[in-house]
């Protein structure tokens, strides 16, 4: 029962909520809203993926259910998955088999609790922060929860008692554990710069100086690639590589259990997009203006900032989809080598470079501001140019499809020939 008197108290609309009951009520409302929007967006994303892939491939995409746009396709898919028979392999471990889809789905949702999605909303009961829980350790919470996602996949692979699922589970555990390291390391520069791990503080810091995508571009690049790998998206979709492992860890799943994995994948995409928007693109901050960050807070500001946040998230989700329909898939050993030999050293090196730069800037008396950001940006441009030349191997820089590319091909040939000889002979 809600004590009505608490809700009826007239307080300053701009002041934070003080009453405990009001806080609980608003938290529940926010939870419901976030959950609804989140599930809806995950469902619509399945449609978006099909529409965008169709656009890339010169097709129409879904255009039967719900008019030419196919707007009801997700609903039709959902109904289909509810009605389908659920099968389970005879020798599957039933408890693990059942709990695995939930385990992969829940962490993706939990992360959303700490992501602010708009400027505070003034209400008659006080100012409501548009974040379910603005945890002081928000950022660490994200890292901790995101690591849990691997359990669902590993358990699904293991519990299915299927060799393909098993290989998928193994691949994904190795992949996600490796890329989590790079993911975590690429976020340390943000903490260095913001001096705080609360999400709202990170957003405030960005709106006051410059977005982290310019301040910390290198970290952004590493984070983006690692996020792709964490989400098992192409080119890192090895755990479910359809051409090799049928469907990887979810080969044996059907109906709603499969659907949960499916939703979890899209949910993870939205989460990754929102995280990147928050950490690197200033969250709900509207670019080139300062008025949205300052009091007094109004409903209009909330709506505009919310729209801004959704646009940024949507942009990243679009890029994810775009990449999926453009690139081939890595091989397992290449993925590992990229994670440990490229991503991790780059992330670690960047931490060292950034920490030094920040110290030097502090010592010579340049405080956070335009000049400070400009210096960081220049530093990033230099690092990225270097990285680009290394990764490019003369494909784009040297238009004659350079010698470095040829040399790499020769190296790859030699390596794989020697592997085939040594390991083929070792049997």
């Amino acid at each position, binding site marked *: 029962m809600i004590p009505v008197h608490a809700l009826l108290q007239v307080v300053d609309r701009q002041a934070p909520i003080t009453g405990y009951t009001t806080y609980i009520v608003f938290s529940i409302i926010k939870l419901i809203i976030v959950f609804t929007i989140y599930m809806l967006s995950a469902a619509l994303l399945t449609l978006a993926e099909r529409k965008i892939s169709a656009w890339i*491939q010169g097709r129409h995409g879904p255009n039967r259910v719900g008019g030419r746009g196919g707007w009801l396709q997700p609903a039709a898919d959902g109904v289909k998955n509810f009605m389908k028979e659920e099968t389970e392999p005879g020798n599957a471990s039933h408890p693990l088999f059942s709990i695995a889809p939930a385990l992969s789905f829940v962490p993706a949702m939990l992360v959303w609790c700490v992501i602010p999605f708009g400027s505070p909303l003034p209400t008659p009961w006080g100012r409501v922060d548009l974040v379910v829980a603005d945890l002081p350790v928000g950022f660490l919470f994200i890292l901790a929860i995101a690591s849990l996602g691997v359990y669902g996949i590993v358990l699904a692979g293991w519990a299915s008692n299927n*060799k393909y699922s098993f*290989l998928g589970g193994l691949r994904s555990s190795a992949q996600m554990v490796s890329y989590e390291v790079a993911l975590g390391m690429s976020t340390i520069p943000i903490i260095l710069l913001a001096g705080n791990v609360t999400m709202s503080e990170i957003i405030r810091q960005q709106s006051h100086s410059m977005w982290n995508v310019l301040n910390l571009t290198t970290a952004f690049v590493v984070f983006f690639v690692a996020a792709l790998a964490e989400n098992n998206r192409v080119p890192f979709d090895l755990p479910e*590589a359809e051409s090799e492992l049928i469907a990887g860890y979810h080969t044996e799943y059907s109906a709603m259990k499969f659907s949960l994995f499916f939703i979890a994948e899209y949910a993870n995409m939205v989460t990754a997009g929102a995280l990147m928007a928050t950490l690197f693109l200033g969250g709900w901050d509207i670019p080139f203006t300062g008025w949205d960050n300052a009091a007094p807070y109004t409903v209009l500001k909330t709506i505009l900032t919310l729209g801004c946040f959704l646009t940024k998230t949507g942009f990243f989700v679009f890029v994810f989809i775009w990449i999926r329909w453009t690139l*081939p898939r890595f091989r397992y050993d290449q993925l590992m080598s990229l994670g440990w030999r490229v991503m991790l050293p780059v992330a670690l090196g960047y931490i060292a470079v950034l920490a030094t730069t920040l110290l030097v800037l502090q010592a010579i008396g340049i405080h956070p501001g335009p000049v400070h950001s400009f210096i960081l940006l220049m530093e990033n441009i230099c690092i990225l140019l270097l990285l680009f030349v290394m*990764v490019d191997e003369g494909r784009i820089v040297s238009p004659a499809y350079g010698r470095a590319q040829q040399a790499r091909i020769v190296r*790859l040939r030699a390596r794989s020939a020697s592997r085939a000889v*040594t390991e083929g002979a070792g049997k």
Partner: protein
Amino acid sequence: MATKTRTIEVELSTSGLDRSGKPQRVPLVTNDGGVSIGIPEPLALEPALDGEHMLINLGPQHPATHGVLRLVLELDGETVVRCIPHIGYLHCGFEKTGEYRQYNQIIPWTDREDYLNAPGNNVAMALGAERLFGITITERCKVLRVIACELSRIMSHLVWLGTTSIDIGAYTPFLWSFHQRELIYQLLEAWTGARLTTSLTRVGGLMADIPDGWTDNARSFLAGFDKVLDDVEKLLTNNGIWVGRTVGLGVMSPEEAINWGLSGSMLRASGVSYDVRKDFPYLDYETYDFEVPVGVNGDVYDRYLVRVEEMRQSARIVRQALDRLPDGPINVDDARVILPSKTKATSGMESMIHHFKQVMEGPRPPVGEAYVAVESPRGEKGYYMVSDGTAKPVRWRIRPPSFLNLSAIPKMVEGHLLSDVIAINASIDVVLGEIDR
């Protein structure tokens, strides 16, 4: 009617392997009591696993085995230690059925054995039968057959390109190439009325001439096709991931490639410039101006490059053929093999009898044998037929390039990773209908 029993004494044996892997004759009869024949134990189908190895069964129902190929892989982690291919899941008895069909009736079977190259097979079958009959086909027929062969090569390579890119994880080139294939299908549909099973040729000619405006449509297809091929190449050829996934895999040196009996793009990617169209020209291929692309390293990447270039060369040949397409009849003027026209057959007595006998009894070639090899998209495709003077061949034999190419797969994949098996298998471009025939 009384049946007369007689006893035939033959030694029934088949070729097989002894336990050390050397070829030997394996007797098939055991029950005649007289001589006891020692039959060696059959080779173990399931290999003994040592240590931590895992046996995984890839196929026959698997998204990346291009049909119903079954590969039993022994894995050490994800490294393939041993690969045993199993075939026969698509056995349809094409060759045996051919012995009960007239030559023209075999042509629809050739549609189905290598179903990605139906027009090319039709042409090969017709060429073989014509060699048996001693027929020289008309100029227009020759040029039209070249067009059909090259379009079907493009079509088959497009399927290969699309499915291989899916196997390596890139989905978009698949739909782009299948769109182009669809355009060729429309051309073939306008010509023959069928899309997959064209049954284009007849002994001594073609089942139909091209319809009006067909050459313009073909030209406009070729114009768009080059652009799409460029787009696909932009996505793949210099893509770091694609290069990383294909270079150095399944390497066959030129000597190995020849020893294993590879042919077609597989052989050429290994650096051996052998193309039936150049080396044993048929259909006046020697008068067309085209290059035979040859690889250097014999790996999956080179096979990709070779096949893409072959598509360009095929388009070039089709252009030349469209330019030189002469007027005239498509069928030879030879009453032995060619049916009288429908109008004549329904109005004149002699023509009607001729038509009836042609259809019911079929044309009879002289006693003899003929072997014709053509360059199919998969390699040297041969048809061998033996005639005893009746309307049906006593033996019809297919030389399937896929079968020989596939036989090298254990050699190519062992030591590589599971993902590489998929890429290598895709690079062979197998069509199981042809292998199991």
